[in-house]
């Protein structure tokens, strides 16, 4: 895309226009790349939503109003499996709980006031939280949150519309492997959280419990069933770096280093010398 600035953190950023200066911010660059990567898979959400039985406006309502990828996929996943509306709503709501944790972290980090709190809340998702908390400078944290939040919101909704319009013209979704896309999407959402033995054990127990429960309960309910059993005092933190092991994460790491190293003198990183 044409917005890429010349090499970030290069000398002389102060002499450029404000827009170019903003694009030289590491957090803004990470935010933009995460927005594009995430926005693009809005296509698969839109297409899966309409092939799961939702209409165009229902798909758009989820992206515009619910706006949390995992919860949205959960909702259509339950509907596609023949589950009831209440089961779909419950799965989406349980998955959305982590956004409350992110909200607490971001509130402590960014201290938004007035209307920013209410707009920021809607933009509080994995991607914006990860982009913001991956930075160490408060101004960069703020830029990262808003760039990724607004960027993902706009592109996610745009590509949901594209996917929903294309999906209804596809015919049999199975012919295109769209049910396989859903399987892959859930595994990809789960994967970065499987760090260490306990998360893997929890995932395995829930997977087995779900399979065992399938013949005995109505469609959609196995997803919720595990919730009523078991201990919940395992030493877990919510995963706030969903991109940590993927490519935007590397950029983020690199950006962090650029930013961290020559901080002491209060100069632009890399300026002069």
């Amino acid at each position, binding site marked *: 895309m044409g917005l890429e600035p010349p090499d970030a953190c290069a000398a002389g950023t102060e002499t450029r226009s404000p827009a170019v200066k903003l694009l030289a911010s590491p957090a803004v660059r990470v935010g933009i790349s995460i927005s594009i990567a995430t926005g693009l898979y809005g296509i698969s959400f839109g297409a899966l939503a309409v092939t799961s039985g939702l209409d165009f406006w229902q798909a758009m309502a989820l992206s515009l109003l619910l706006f949390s990828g995992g919860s949205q996929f959960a909702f259509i996943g339950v509907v596609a499996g023949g589950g009831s509306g209440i089961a779909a709503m419950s799965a989406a709501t349980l998955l959305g709980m982590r956004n409350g944790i992110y909200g607490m972290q971001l509130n402590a980090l960014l201290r938004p006031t007035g209307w920013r709190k209410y707009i920021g809340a809607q933009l509080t998702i994995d991607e914006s939280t990860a982009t913001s908390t991956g930075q160490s400078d408060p101004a960069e944290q703020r830029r990262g949150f808003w760039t990724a939040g607004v960027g993902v919101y706009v592109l996610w909704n745009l590509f949901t519309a594209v996917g929903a319009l294309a999906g209804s013209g596809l015919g049999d979704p199975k012919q295109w492997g769209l049910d396989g896309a859903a*399987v892959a999407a859930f595994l990809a959402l789960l994967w970065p959280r499987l760090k260490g033995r306990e998360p893997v054990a929890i995932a395995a127990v829930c997977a087995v419990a779900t399979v065992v429960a399938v013949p005995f309960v109505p469609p959609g309910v196995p997803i919720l069933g595990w919730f009523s059993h078991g201990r919940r005092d395992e030493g877990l933190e919510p995963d706030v770096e969903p991109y940590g092991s993927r490519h935007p994460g590397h950029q983020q790491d690199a950006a962090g280093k650029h930013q961290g190293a020559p901080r002491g003198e209060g100069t632009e990183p890399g300026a002069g010398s």
Partner: protein
Amino acid sequence: MSLWIWLLIACVLAYAWKIVGYFVPAKFLEDPRTSRVAGTMTIGLLASLTVVNAVVSGQGLAADARLGALAAAAIALALRAPFLVVVIAGAGTAALLRFLGWS
């Protein structure tokens, strides 16, 4: 029509979670139980959703092309492919297996 109602309730509750985070005292965040519950719940639900979408068919289990999609996605993730590539690998594998005649 009733799907619309549950869908809109889900949207309201999703925003409720988000906005609640901005108004609860920071002390609540320091209670380790809060983040443990959220972390455990997220992992458990995603594991359940993965399995349901891979092998559940109506009220029974089925081994079909979706298992191939699951394997392809796992390989792509192990190779650190980005999300979109993982999803395309899953879809492509399922489509290919069906084209080759495996349900």
